[in-house]
């Protein structure tokens, strides 16, 4: 929850033309239903779309993208990843990247979100990232 508030704070201080996909997924045993309105309200930025991913499908796709080796190795910062699960994490993709067969490599993958806010702000502000 701290991570969601941290992300909202980043968005509040940025007027960049972003698309933000907020993926809520079950991590703890008590995560048996989609997030409540109160939880969703933590991310109130109009650039955000929110999803409930009970089968963690997006995390699986991201794991595939992040694990694939090659020259596009992802700079990864302490992302909680366990058993196909990714949570309290932010992935950033530059403009122009397409999701064809598999999700593209993120340009940045970091977490816990509250701990990497400076990194995320810096990455979002990179001119290369905005126009790449």
């Amino acid at each position, binding site marked *: *929850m701290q*991570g*969601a508030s941290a*992300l909202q704070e980043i968005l509040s201080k940025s007027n*960049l*033309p*972003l*698309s*933000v*996909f*907020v*993926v*809520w*997924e*079950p*991590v*703890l045993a*008590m*995560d*048996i*239903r*989609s*997030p*409540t*309105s109160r939880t*969703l*309200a933590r*991310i*109130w930025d*109009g650039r*955000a*779309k*929110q*999803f*409930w*991913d*009970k*089968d963690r*499908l*997006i*995390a699986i796709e*991201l794991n595939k993208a992040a694990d694939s080796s090659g020259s596009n190795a992802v700079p990864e910062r302490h992302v909680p990843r366990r058993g196909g699960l*990714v*949570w*309290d994490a*932010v*992935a*950033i*993709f*530059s*403009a*122009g990247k*397409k*999701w064809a067969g598999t*999700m593209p490599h*993120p340009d940045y993958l970091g977490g816990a*979100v509250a701990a990497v806010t400076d990194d995320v702000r810096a990455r*979002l502000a990179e001119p290369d*990232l*905005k126009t790449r």
Partner: protein
Amino acid sequence: MSVHSASIRRWRGAALLMVGALAAFLGYLRWPTKTPAGQSPLVLLSSQNLESFRHAFNAADDRTRVIAFFSPT
């Protein structure tokens, strides 16, 4: 009041409590959620509509995209 009827009342009270708790739990599970003003409604992802996520991701390829992962609790 006999011991027998007191026992029945206790069982009835316990049963009512359990039904109430079950109703509250089911209500919690089915309680509708709303996204903040200005956002589209919450999308419940499944393998059937995963494509819609991919489509939205690609449709926004003129700008930087952020995917964030959180637990609701």
